[in-house]
Protein backbone atom coordinates (compact mmCIF):
# COMPACT_ATOMS: atom_id res chain seq x y z
CA UNK A 1 0.00 0.00 0.00
CA UNK A 2 3.09 2.19 0.12
CA UNK A 3 2.68 3.07 -3.50
CA UNK A 4 -0.91 4.19 -2.92
CA UNK A 5 0.48 6.78 -0.51
CA UNK A 6 2.96 7.63 -3.27
CA UNK A 7 0.05 8.29 -5.60
CA UNK A 8 -1.47 10.68 -3.07
CA UNK A 9 1.90 12.44 -2.82
CA UNK A 10 2.11 12.60 -6.59
CA UNK A 11 -1.33 14.22 -6.81
CA UNK A 12 -0.07 16.84 -4.34
CA UNK A 13 3.19 17.62 -6.16
CA UNK A 14 1.50 20.52 -7.81
CA UNK A 15 -0.16 22.05 -4.74
CA UNK A 16 -2.44 24.21 -6.79
CA UNK A 17 -4.92 21.60 -8.08
CA UNK A 18 -5.90 19.84 -4.89
CA UNK A 19 -5.19 22.55 -2.31
CA UNK A 20 -4.75 26.01 -3.85
CA UNK A 21 -7.79 26.15 -6.07
CA UNK A 22 -10.26 24.77 -3.49
CA UNK A 23 -8.92 27.22 -0.90
CA UNK A 24 -9.25 30.06 -3.40
CA UNK A 25 -12.80 29.05 -4.34
CA UNK A 26 -13.90 28.92 -0.70
CA UNK A 27 -12.17 32.20 0.14
CA UNK A 28 -13.42 34.13 -2.87
CA UNK A 29 -16.98 32.79 -2.73
CA UNK A 30 -17.09 33.73 0.96
CA UNK A 31 -15.71 37.20 0.25
CA UNK A 32 -18.28 37.79 -2.49
CA UNK A 33 -21.07 36.61 -0.17
CA UNK A 34 -19.90 39.06 2.51
CA UNK A 35 -19.86 41.92 0.00
CA UNK A 36 -23.34 41.11 -1.27
CA UNK A 37 -24.71 40.75 2.29
CA UNK A 38 -23.25 44.14 3.12
CA UNK A 39 -25.14 45.68 0.20
CA UNK A 40 -28.51 44.20 1.19
CA UNK A 41 -30.41 46.11 3.90
CA UNK A 42 -30.74 44.18 7.18
CA UNK A 43 -34.50 44.63 7.15
CA UNK A 44 -34.88 41.58 4.84
CA UNK A 45 -33.95 39.29 7.71
CA UNK A 46 -31.59 36.34 7.20
CA UNK A 47 -29.60 36.49 3.98
CA UNK A 48 -28.83 33.13 2.45
CA UNK A 49 -25.86 32.34 0.23
CA UNK A 50 -25.47 29.13 -1.74
CA UNK A 51 -21.81 29.89 -2.42
CA UNK A 52 -20.73 27.15 -0.02
CA UNK A 53 -21.43 24.57 -2.68
CA UNK A 54 -19.12 26.19 -5.24
CA UNK A 55 -16.12 24.17 -4.09
CA UNK A 56 -18.14 20.97 -4.16
CA UNK A 57 -18.77 21.37 -7.89
CA UNK A 58 -15.07 21.94 -8.42
CA UNK A 59 -14.56 18.47 -6.99
CA UNK A 60 -16.78 17.03 -9.68
CA UNK A 61 -14.38 18.48 -12.26
CA UNK A 62 -11.40 17.36 -10.22
CA UNK A 63 -12.70 13.79 -10.29
CA UNK A 64 -12.69 13.95 -14.08
CA UNK A 65 -9.31 15.64 -14.30
CA UNK A 66 -7.45 13.38 -11.91
CA UNK A 67 -8.42 10.46 -14.09
CA UNK A 68 -7.99 11.87 -17.59
CA UNK A 69 -4.53 13.35 -16.98
CA UNK A 70 -2.98 11.72 -13.96
CA UNK A 71 -4.04 8.15 -14.68
CA UNK A 72 -2.13 7.89 -17.99
CA UNK A 73 0.94 9.37 -16.32
CA UNK A 74 0.70 6.92 -13.43
CA UNK A 75 0.60 4.12 -15.98
CA UNK A 76 3.82 5.43 -17.52
CA UNK A 77 5.42 5.10 -14.09
CA UNK A 78 4.06 1.54 -13.89
CA UNK A 79 1.72 2.14 -10.96
CA UNK A 80 -1.00 -0.47 -10.62
CA UNK A 81 -4.54 0.67 -11.24
CA UNK A 82 -5.47 -0.44 -7.72
CA UNK A 83 -2.88 1.81 -6.11
CA UNK A 84 -3.82 4.68 -8.38
CA UNK A 85 -7.45 4.30 -7.32
CA UNK A 86 -6.84 4.03 -3.58
CA UNK A 87 -4.20 6.75 -3.56
CA UNK A 88 -6.39 9.21 -5.44
CA UNK A 89 -9.70 8.46 -3.74
CA UNK A 90 -7.97 8.26 -0.35
CA UNK A 91 -6.35 11.66 -0.81
CA UNK A 92 -9.67 13.07 -1.84
CA UNK A 93 -11.40 11.60 1.20
CA UNK A 94 -8.87 13.38 3.43
CA UNK A 95 -9.47 16.68 1.66
CA UNK A 96 -13.25 16.26 1.75
CA UNK A 97 -13.06 15.50 5.47
CA UNK A 98 -10.93 18.59 6.11
CA UNK A 99 -13.31 20.85 4.21
CA UNK A 100 -16.27 19.32 6.07
CA UNK A 101 -14.60 20.14 9.39
CA UNK A 102 -13.88 23.65 8.15
CA UNK A 103 -17.52 24.14 7.10
CA UNK A 104 -18.88 22.95 10.44
CA UNK A 105 -16.45 25.19 12.35
CA UNK A 106 -17.24 28.20 10.16
CA UNK A 107 -20.92 27.36 10.65
CA UNK A 108 -20.49 27.65 14.43
CA UNK A 109 -18.71 30.98 14.03
CA UNK A 110 -21.42 32.15 11.68
CA UNK A 111 -24.16 31.26 14.14
CA UNK A 112 -22.28 32.85 17.05
CA UNK A 113 -21.62 36.15 15.23
CA UNK A 114 -25.13 36.72 13.94
CA UNK A 115 -24.03 35.73 10.43
CA UNK A 116 -20.69 37.60 10.46
CA UNK A 117 -22.53 40.63 11.80
CA UNK A 118 -24.50 40.78 8.56
CA UNK A 119 -27.25 38.20 9.20
CA UNK A 120 -25.69 36.06 6.48
CA UNK A 121 -26.00 32.32 6.19
CA UNK A 122 -23.50 30.43 4.09
CA UNK A 123 -22.00 27.65 6.20
CA UNK A 124 -24.68 27.18 8.81
CA UNK A 125 -27.51 26.53 6.35
CA UNK A 126 -30.73 26.09 8.30
CA UNK A 127 -31.65 22.62 7.16
CA UNK A 128 -28.15 21.22 7.78
CA UNK A 129 -27.20 23.19 10.88
CA UNK A 130 -30.20 21.87 12.81
CA UNK A 131 -28.24 18.64 13.00
CA UNK A 132 -25.67 17.94 15.72
CA UNK A 133 -22.16 18.57 14.41
CA UNK A 134 -21.60 14.90 13.64
CA UNK A 135 -24.55 14.86 11.27
CA UNK A 136 -23.35 18.04 9.57
CA UNK A 137 -19.86 16.62 9.06
CA UNK A 138 -21.29 13.43 7.64
CA UNK A 139 -23.55 15.27 5.21
CA UNK A 140 -20.86 17.57 3.79
CA UNK A 141 -18.37 14.76 3.52
CA UNK A 142 -20.69 12.39 1.72
CA UNK A 143 -21.91 15.02 -0.74
CA UNK A 144 -18.32 15.88 -1.69
CA UNK A 145 -17.34 12.24 -2.05
CA UNK A 146 -20.41 11.61 -4.17
CA UNK A 147 -19.59 14.45 -6.58
CA UNK A 148 -15.92 13.51 -6.85
CA UNK A 149 -16.67 9.85 -7.48
CA UNK A 150 -19.36 10.74 -10.02
CA UNK A 151 -16.80 12.70 -12.03
CA UNK A 152 -14.15 10.04 -11.51
CA UNK A 153 -16.36 7.19 -12.64
CA UNK A 154 -17.71 9.13 -15.61
CA UNK A 155 -14.16 9.82 -16.75
CA UNK A 156 -13.22 6.17 -16.25
CA UNK A 157 -16.14 5.04 -18.37
CA UNK A 158 -15.03 7.46 -21.07
CA UNK A 159 -11.44 6.25 -20.85
CA UNK A 160 -12.48 2.66 -21.28
CA UNK A 161 -15.34 2.82 -23.77
CA UNK A 162 -15.11 6.41 -25.09
CA UNK A 163 -18.27 8.16 -26.25
CA UNK A 164 -20.19 4.91 -26.64
CA UNK A 165 -19.65 4.20 -22.96
CA UNK A 166 -20.88 7.60 -21.84
CA UNK A 167 -23.91 7.39 -24.13
CA UNK A 168 -24.86 3.98 -22.80
CA UNK A 169 -24.36 5.24 -19.25
CA UNK A 170 -26.52 8.33 -19.67
CA UNK A 171 -29.22 6.52 -21.64
CA UNK A 172 -29.42 3.80 -18.97
CA UNK A 173 -29.59 6.46 -16.28
CA UNK A 174 -32.37 8.21 -18.24
CA UNK A 175 -34.31 4.97 -18.65
CA UNK A 176 -33.93 4.30 -14.93
CA UNK A 177 -35.21 7.77 -13.97
CA UNK A 178 -38.09 7.90 -16.46
CA UNK A 179 -38.94 4.31 -15.55
CA UNK A 180 -39.14 5.20 -11.86
CA UNK A 181 -41.31 8.24 -12.59
CA UNK A 182 -43.58 6.05 -14.71
CA UNK A 183 -43.75 3.40 -12.00
CA UNK A 184 -44.56 5.97 -9.31
CA UNK A 185 -47.26 7.57 -11.46
CA UNK A 186 -48.75 4.23 -12.46
CA UNK A 187 -48.85 3.02 -8.86
CA UNK A 188 -50.13 6.36 -7.59
CA UNK A 189 -47.23 6.70 -5.16
CA UNK A 190 -46.64 10.44 -5.57
CA UNK A 191 -48.15 11.40 -2.23
CA UNK A 192 -45.96 8.87 -0.45
CA UNK A 193 -42.88 10.05 -2.35
CA UNK A 194 -43.68 13.67 -1.49
CA UNK A 195 -43.93 13.00 2.23
CA UNK A 196 -40.75 10.91 2.06
CA UNK A 197 -38.85 13.83 0.49
CA UNK A 198 -40.18 16.27 3.08
CA UNK A 199 -39.16 13.91 5.85
CA UNK A 200 -35.55 13.64 4.55
CA UNK A 201 -32.95 14.93 6.97
CA UNK A 202 -29.34 15.62 6.09
CA UNK A 203 -28.49 12.31 7.76
CA UNK A 204 -30.98 10.19 5.82
CA UNK A 205 -30.14 12.00 2.59
CA UNK A 206 -26.48 11.57 3.48
CA UNK A 207 -26.99 7.86 3.96
CA UNK A 208 -28.60 7.66 0.55
CA UNK A 209 -25.71 9.61 -0.99
CA UNK A 210 -23.27 7.36 0.87
CA UNK A 211 -24.87 4.31 -0.69
CA UNK A 212 -24.68 5.90 -4.14
CA UNK A 213 -21.10 7.06 -3.57
CA UNK A 214 -20.09 3.55 -2.53
CA UNK A 215 -21.75 2.21 -5.67
CA UNK A 216 -19.89 4.78 -7.77
CA UNK A 217 -16.62 3.90 -6.05
CA UNK A 218 -17.00 0.18 -6.68
CA UNK A 219 -18.10 0.90 -10.25
CA UNK A 220 -15.12 3.18 -10.83
CA UNK A 221 -12.70 0.63 -9.41
CA UNK A 222 -14.03 -2.23 -11.52
CA UNK A 223 -14.08 -0.05 -14.63
CA UNK A 224 -10.54 1.17 -13.99
CA UNK A 225 -9.17 -2.35 -13.53
CA UNK A 226 -9.11 -2.86 -17.27
CA UNK A 227 -8.92 0.72 -18.53
CA UNK A 228 -6.03 1.63 -20.81
CA UNK A 229 -4.22 4.98 -20.64
Amino acid at each position, binding site marked *: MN*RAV*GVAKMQL*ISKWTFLGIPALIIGVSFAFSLLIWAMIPDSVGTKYSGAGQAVMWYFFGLGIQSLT*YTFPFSQ*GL*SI*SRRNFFFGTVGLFAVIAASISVLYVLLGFVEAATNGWGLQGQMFSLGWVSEQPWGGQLFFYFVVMMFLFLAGFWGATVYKRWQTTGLLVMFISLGILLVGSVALITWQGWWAAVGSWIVALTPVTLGLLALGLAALLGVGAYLTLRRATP
Partner: protein
Amino acid sequence: MSTTVVSMENVSKAYKDVMALDGVSLRLEQDKIYGLLGRNGAGKTTLMSVLTAQGFASSGEFSVFGEQPHENEKVLSRICFIRESQKYPDDFKPFHAFKAAAIFYKDWDNALALQLAKDFQLPMKRRIKKLSRGQLSAVGVIIGLASRAELTFFDEPYLGLDAVARQLFYDSLLADYSEFPRTIVLSSHLIDEVANLLEHVIVIDKGKIIVDDDAENLRGSAFSVAGPAARVESFAAARAVLHREGIGALLSLTVEGVLSQAERREAAELGLEVGPVSLQQLVIKKTLDAGIAGVPDGAREETAKAARKSSRMGASQ
Protein backbone atom coordinates in the same frame (compact mmCIF):
# COMPACT_ATOMS: atom_id res chain seq x y z
CA MET B 1 22.81 -19.15 -19.32
CA SER B 2 21.27 -15.74 -19.12
CA THR B 3 18.14 -14.86 -17.18
CA THR B 4 14.90 -14.46 -19.03
CA VAL B 5 13.14 -11.20 -18.23
CA VAL B 6 10.25 -11.40 -20.66
CA SER B 7 8.72 -14.39 -22.35
CA MET B 8 5.74 -14.33 -24.66
CA GLU B 9 4.01 -17.34 -26.14
CA ASN B 10 1.68 -16.86 -29.08
CA VAL B 11 0.35 -13.50 -27.87
CA SER B 12 -2.26 -11.77 -30.03
CA LYS B 13 -4.09 -8.51 -29.72
CA ALA B 14 -7.05 -7.82 -31.97
CA TYR B 15 -8.62 -4.43 -32.49
CA LYS B 16 -11.89 -4.22 -34.36
CA ASP B 17 -10.52 -4.92 -37.82
CA VAL B 18 -6.76 -5.32 -37.38
CA MET B 19 -4.50 -7.74 -35.61
CA ALA B 20 -2.12 -5.39 -33.80
CA LEU B 21 -0.24 -8.45 -32.53
CA ASP B 22 -0.55 -11.74 -34.33
CA GLY B 23 0.86 -14.78 -32.57
CA VAL B 24 3.94 -13.12 -31.09
CA SER B 25 6.43 -15.35 -29.30
CA LEU B 26 9.50 -13.71 -27.80
CA ARG B 27 12.12 -13.97 -25.12
CA LEU B 28 14.02 -11.00 -23.74
CA GLU B 29 17.12 -11.62 -21.68
CA GLN B 30 18.49 -9.65 -18.78
CA ASP B 31 20.87 -6.72 -19.34
CA LYS B 32 20.65 -6.55 -23.10
CA ILE B 33 19.71 -3.69 -25.38
CA TYR B 34 16.98 -4.70 -27.78
CA GLY B 35 15.87 -2.87 -30.86
CA LEU B 36 12.18 -3.19 -31.55
CA LEU B 37 12.02 -2.14 -35.17
CA GLY B 38 9.19 -1.81 -37.59
CA ARG B 39 7.14 0.58 -39.60
CA ASN B 40 4.59 2.94 -38.12
CA GLY B 41 1.58 0.93 -37.02
CA ALA B 42 3.49 -2.36 -37.11
CA GLY B 43 2.57 -3.15 -33.49
CA LYS B 44 5.59 -1.83 -31.58
CA THR B 45 3.67 0.28 -29.07
CA THR B 46 0.98 -2.38 -28.66
CA LEU B 47 3.63 -4.96 -27.84
CA MET B 48 5.19 -2.73 -25.19
CA SER B 49 1.77 -1.78 -23.77
CA VAL B 50 0.85 -5.43 -23.31
CA LEU B 51 4.15 -6.22 -21.58
CA THR B 52 3.75 -3.31 -19.15
CA ALA B 53 0.07 -4.10 -18.47
CA GLN B 54 -0.92 -0.72 -19.84
CA GLY B 55 -2.81 -2.61 -22.53
CA PHE B 56 -4.33 -6.06 -22.70
CA ALA B 57 -3.68 -9.00 -24.98
CA SER B 58 -6.61 -10.81 -26.58
CA SER B 59 -4.98 -14.21 -26.26
CA GLY B 60 -1.71 -15.94 -25.46
CA GLU B 61 0.55 -16.34 -22.47
CA PHE B 62 3.29 -14.00 -21.32
CA SER B 63 5.29 -13.23 -18.23
CA VAL B 64 7.58 -10.45 -17.08
CA PHE B 65 10.13 -11.28 -14.38
CA GLY B 66 8.44 -14.68 -14.23
CA GLU B 67 4.98 -13.38 -13.38
CA GLN B 68 2.08 -11.77 -15.14
CA PRO B 69 2.32 -7.99 -14.71
CA HIS B 70 -1.31 -6.84 -14.52
CA GLU B 71 -1.94 -5.22 -11.10
CA ASN B 72 1.22 -6.94 -9.92
CA GLU B 73 3.16 -4.28 -8.02
CA LYS B 74 6.14 -6.58 -7.56
CA VAL B 75 6.65 -6.69 -11.30
CA LEU B 76 5.42 -3.21 -12.19
CA SER B 77 7.79 -1.47 -9.79
CA ARG B 78 10.71 -2.75 -11.91
CA ILE B 79 9.35 -1.43 -15.22
CA CYS B 80 9.36 1.99 -16.88
CA PHE B 81 7.52 2.70 -20.12
CA ILE B 82 6.96 6.32 -21.12
CA ARG B 83 5.06 6.15 -24.36
CA GLU B 84 5.70 8.36 -27.35
CA SER B 85 2.30 10.06 -26.84
CA GLN B 86 2.63 10.10 -23.04
CA LYS B 87 0.13 12.32 -21.22
CA TYR B 88 1.10 14.28 -18.13
CA PRO B 89 -1.11 15.89 -15.47
CA ASP B 90 -2.48 19.13 -16.85
CA ASP B 91 -0.56 21.52 -14.64
CA PHE B 92 2.70 19.55 -14.51
CA LYS B 93 6.04 21.07 -15.35
CA PRO B 94 9.07 18.88 -16.12
CA PHE B 95 10.38 19.14 -12.55
CA HIS B 96 6.99 17.93 -11.25
CA ALA B 97 7.18 14.89 -13.50
CA PHE B 98 10.69 14.11 -12.24
CA LYS B 99 9.58 14.50 -8.63
CA ALA B 100 6.75 12.06 -9.27
CA ALA B 101 9.10 9.53 -10.87
CA ALA B 102 11.44 9.86 -7.88
CA ILE B 103 8.61 8.71 -5.59
CA PHE B 104 8.13 5.44 -7.44
CA TYR B 105 11.58 4.36 -8.63
CA LYS B 106 13.86 3.26 -5.84
CA ASP B 107 16.96 3.70 -8.02
CA TRP B 108 15.95 7.13 -9.35
CA ASP B 109 19.05 9.25 -9.96
CA ASN B 110 18.07 12.86 -9.54
CA ALA B 111 21.54 14.19 -10.33
CA LEU B 112 21.40 12.39 -13.65
CA ALA B 113 17.93 13.80 -14.36
CA LEU B 114 19.11 17.33 -13.67
CA GLN B 115 22.23 16.87 -15.75
CA LEU B 116 20.24 15.51 -18.68
CA ALA B 117 17.70 18.32 -18.41
CA LYS B 118 20.58 20.75 -18.70
CA ASP B 119 22.10 18.88 -21.64
CA PHE B 120 18.77 18.76 -23.46
CA GLN B 121 18.18 22.43 -22.61
CA LEU B 122 14.80 21.49 -21.18
CA PRO B 123 12.89 24.38 -19.60
CA MET B 124 12.13 22.84 -16.20
CA LYS B 125 9.55 25.42 -15.21
CA ARG B 126 7.45 25.55 -18.32
CA ARG B 127 4.18 23.61 -18.37
CA ILE B 128 4.63 20.30 -20.14
CA LYS B 129 1.67 20.92 -22.41
CA LYS B 130 3.42 24.03 -23.73
CA LEU B 131 6.66 22.21 -24.57
CA SER B 132 7.72 21.56 -28.16
CA ARG B 133 7.61 18.01 -29.50
CA GLY B 134 11.35 17.62 -28.96
CA GLN B 135 11.20 18.92 -25.39
CA LEU B 136 8.31 16.57 -24.68
CA SER B 137 10.41 13.67 -25.95
CA ALA B 138 13.25 14.86 -23.73
CA VAL B 139 11.01 14.64 -20.63
CA GLY B 140 10.22 11.00 -21.48
CA VAL B 141 13.85 10.18 -22.26
CA ILE B 142 15.02 11.65 -18.95
CA ILE B 143 12.42 9.71 -16.94
CA GLY B 144 13.37 6.54 -18.79
CA LEU B 145 17.09 6.98 -18.14
CA ALA B 146 17.04 8.34 -14.59
CA SER B 147 14.49 5.79 -13.33
CA ARG B 148 17.08 3.02 -13.89
CA ALA B 149 14.21 0.52 -14.01
CA GLU B 150 15.35 -3.04 -14.60
CA LEU B 151 13.20 -3.19 -17.70
CA THR B 152 12.99 0.12 -19.53
CA PHE B 153 11.11 0.79 -22.74
CA PHE B 154 11.84 3.74 -24.97
CA ASP B 155 9.05 4.38 -27.47
CA GLU B 156 10.43 6.26 -30.48
CA PRO B 157 12.26 8.54 -28.06
CA TYR B 158 13.86 10.69 -30.76
CA LEU B 159 10.66 12.29 -32.10
CA GLY B 160 11.22 16.01 -32.54
CA LEU B 161 14.75 15.88 -31.14
CA ASP B 162 17.38 17.51 -33.31
CA ALA B 163 20.50 15.64 -34.39
CA VAL B 164 22.55 16.92 -31.46
CA ALA B 165 19.94 15.93 -28.90
CA ARG B 166 19.51 12.50 -30.48
CA GLN B 167 23.23 11.85 -30.31
CA LEU B 168 23.15 13.06 -26.72
CA PHE B 169 20.44 10.54 -25.94
CA TYR B 170 22.31 7.65 -27.56
CA ASP B 171 25.51 8.58 -25.76
CA SER B 172 23.80 8.96 -22.37
CA LEU B 173 22.00 5.67 -22.85
CA LEU B 174 25.21 3.81 -23.58
CA ALA B 175 27.14 5.50 -20.80
CA ASP B 176 24.47 4.85 -18.18
CA TYR B 177 23.87 1.33 -19.43
CA SER B 178 27.51 0.37 -19.13
CA GLU B 179 27.54 1.64 -15.56
CA PHE B 180 24.13 0.21 -14.62
CA PRO B 181 23.30 -2.68 -16.95
CA ARG B 182 19.62 -3.36 -17.40
CA THR B 183 17.23 -4.60 -20.04
CA ILE B 184 16.39 -1.89 -22.51
CA VAL B 185 13.94 -2.04 -25.36
CA LEU B 186 14.30 0.74 -27.89
CA SER B 187 11.49 1.03 -30.39
CA SER B 188 12.44 2.85 -33.52
CA HIS B 189 11.93 3.20 -37.20
CA LEU B 190 15.18 5.12 -37.66
CA ILE B 191 17.17 1.95 -37.86
CA ASP B 192 20.62 3.06 -38.98
CA GLU B 193 20.72 5.66 -36.27
CA VAL B 194 20.28 3.19 -33.42
CA ALA B 195 21.96 0.24 -35.11
CA ASN B 196 25.22 0.60 -33.20
CA LEU B 197 23.48 0.53 -29.83
CA LEU B 198 21.63 -2.70 -30.37
CA GLU B 199 22.71 -6.12 -29.27
CA HIS B 200 19.60 -7.84 -30.46
CA VAL B 201 17.14 -6.94 -33.15
CA ILE B 202 13.44 -7.72 -33.25
CA VAL B 203 11.55 -6.66 -36.34
CA ILE B 204 7.79 -6.60 -36.21
CA ASP B 205 5.52 -6.11 -39.18
CA LYS B 206 1.72 -6.18 -39.24
CA GLY B 207 1.76 -7.67 -35.77
CA LYS B 208 4.10 -10.54 -36.63
CA ILE B 209 7.71 -10.98 -35.59
CA ILE B 210 9.69 -11.32 -38.80
CA VAL B 211 13.24 -11.03 -37.44
CA ASP B 212 14.47 -11.99 -33.98
CA ASP B 213 18.22 -12.28 -34.05
CA ASP B 214 21.50 -11.03 -32.68
CA ALA B 215 22.59 -7.79 -34.31
CA GLU B 216 25.97 -9.36 -35.10
CA ASN B 217 24.42 -12.42 -36.74
CA LEU B 218 22.16 -10.20 -38.72
CA ARG B 219 24.98 -8.01 -39.95
CA GLY B 220 27.02 -11.09 -40.82
CA SER B 221 24.18 -12.58 -42.80
CA ALA B 222 24.80 -10.35 -45.78
CA PHE B 223 27.53 -8.24 -47.36
CA SER B 224 27.79 -5.57 -49.98
CA VAL B 225 29.89 -5.75 -53.07
CA ALA B 226 30.62 -2.81 -55.36
CA GLY B 227 32.51 -2.23 -58.59
CA PRO B 228 32.03 -2.26 -62.36
CA ALA B 229 28.51 -3.53 -63.06
CA ALA B 230 29.40 -6.52 -65.23
CA ARG B 231 31.97 -7.90 -62.83
CA VAL B 232 29.75 -7.39 -59.82
CA GLU B 233 26.88 -9.17 -61.57
CA SER B 234 28.96 -12.19 -62.48
CA PHE B 235 30.50 -12.38 -59.00
CA ALA B 236 27.06 -12.36 -57.35
CA ALA B 237 25.39 -14.44 -60.04
CA ALA B 238 24.44 -17.45 -57.93
CA ARG B 239 23.48 -15.46 -54.86
CA ALA B 240 20.35 -13.84 -53.52
CA VAL B 241 20.52 -10.09 -54.06
CA LEU B 242 18.78 -8.09 -51.36
CA HIS B 243 19.33 -4.66 -52.77
CA ARG B 244 20.89 -3.05 -55.80
CA GLU B 245 22.10 0.45 -56.37
CA GLY B 246 23.64 1.53 -59.64
CA ILE B 247 25.30 4.72 -60.77
CA GLY B 248 26.38 4.69 -64.42
CA ALA B 249 28.66 1.75 -65.01
CA LEU B 250 29.14 1.14 -61.30
CA LEU B 251 26.96 -1.21 -59.31
CA SER B 252 26.64 -1.90 -55.61
CA LEU B 253 24.77 -5.00 -54.47
CA THR B 254 23.65 -6.15 -51.06
CA VAL B 255 23.97 -9.90 -51.15
CA GLU B 256 22.78 -12.53 -48.74
CA GLY B 257 25.25 -15.04 -47.37
CA VAL B 258 28.80 -15.23 -46.03
CA LEU B 259 31.97 -14.99 -48.08
CA SER B 260 34.76 -17.54 -47.69
CA GLN B 261 38.40 -16.46 -47.61
CA ALA B 262 38.86 -17.66 -51.20
CA GLU B 263 35.86 -15.68 -52.36
CA ARG B 264 37.16 -12.58 -50.67
CA ARG B 265 40.46 -12.99 -52.48
CA GLU B 266 38.62 -13.50 -55.74
CA ALA B 267 36.65 -10.32 -55.19
CA ALA B 268 39.84 -8.42 -54.45
CA GLU B 269 41.46 -9.74 -57.63
CA LEU B 270 38.46 -8.62 -59.63
CA GLY B 271 38.89 -5.17 -58.16
CA LEU B 272 35.58 -5.35 -56.29
CA GLU B 273 35.00 -3.72 -52.98
CA VAL B 274 33.44 -5.94 -50.32
CA GLY B 275 31.97 -4.40 -47.18
CA PRO B 276 29.51 -4.86 -44.34
CA VAL B 277 25.85 -4.11 -44.88
CA SER B 278 23.63 -1.69 -43.06
CA LEU B 279 21.03 -3.03 -40.67
CA GLN B 280 18.48 -0.70 -42.16
CA GLN B 281 18.80 -2.22 -45.63
CA LEU B 282 18.42 -5.70 -44.22
CA VAL B 283 15.36 -4.78 -42.24
CA ILE B 284 13.74 -2.98 -45.16
CA LYS B 285 14.34 -5.96 -47.39
CA LYS B 286 12.97 -8.43 -44.88
CA THR B 287 9.94 -6.27 -44.19
CA LEU B 288 9.17 -5.96 -47.87
CA ASP B 289 9.59 -9.71 -48.35
CA ALA B 290 7.23 -10.39 -45.49
CA GLY B 291 4.76 -7.94 -46.98
CA ILE B 292 4.93 -9.62 -50.38
CA ALA B 293 4.56 -13.07 -48.85
CA GLY B 294 1.24 -11.99 -47.39
CA VAL B 295 -0.12 -10.65 -50.70
CA PRO B 296 -2.01 -12.79 -53.25
CA ASP B 297 0.01 -13.87 -56.32
CA GLY B 298 -1.35 -11.33 -58.79
CA ALA B 299 -0.58 -8.38 -56.61
CA ARG B 300 2.81 -9.75 -55.60
CA GLU B 301 4.62 -8.65 -58.75
CA GLU B 302 3.14 -5.16 -58.46
CA THR B 303 4.21 -4.80 -54.84
CA ALA B 304 7.69 -6.05 -55.66
CA LYS B 305 7.97 -3.58 -58.50
CA ALA B 306 6.79 -0.73 -56.33
CA ALA B 307 9.22 -1.78 -53.63
CA ARG B 308 12.15 -1.84 -56.03
CA LYS B 309 11.16 1.52 -57.36
CA SER B 310 10.90 3.07 -53.93
CA SER B 311 14.21 1.66 -52.77
CA ARG B 312 15.84 3.00 -55.89
CA MET B 313 14.32 6.38 -55.28
CA GLY B 314 15.58 6.19 -51.74
CA ALA B 315 19.06 5.48 -53.02
CA SER B 316 19.12 8.40 -55.39
CA GLN B 317 18.32 10.95 -52.71
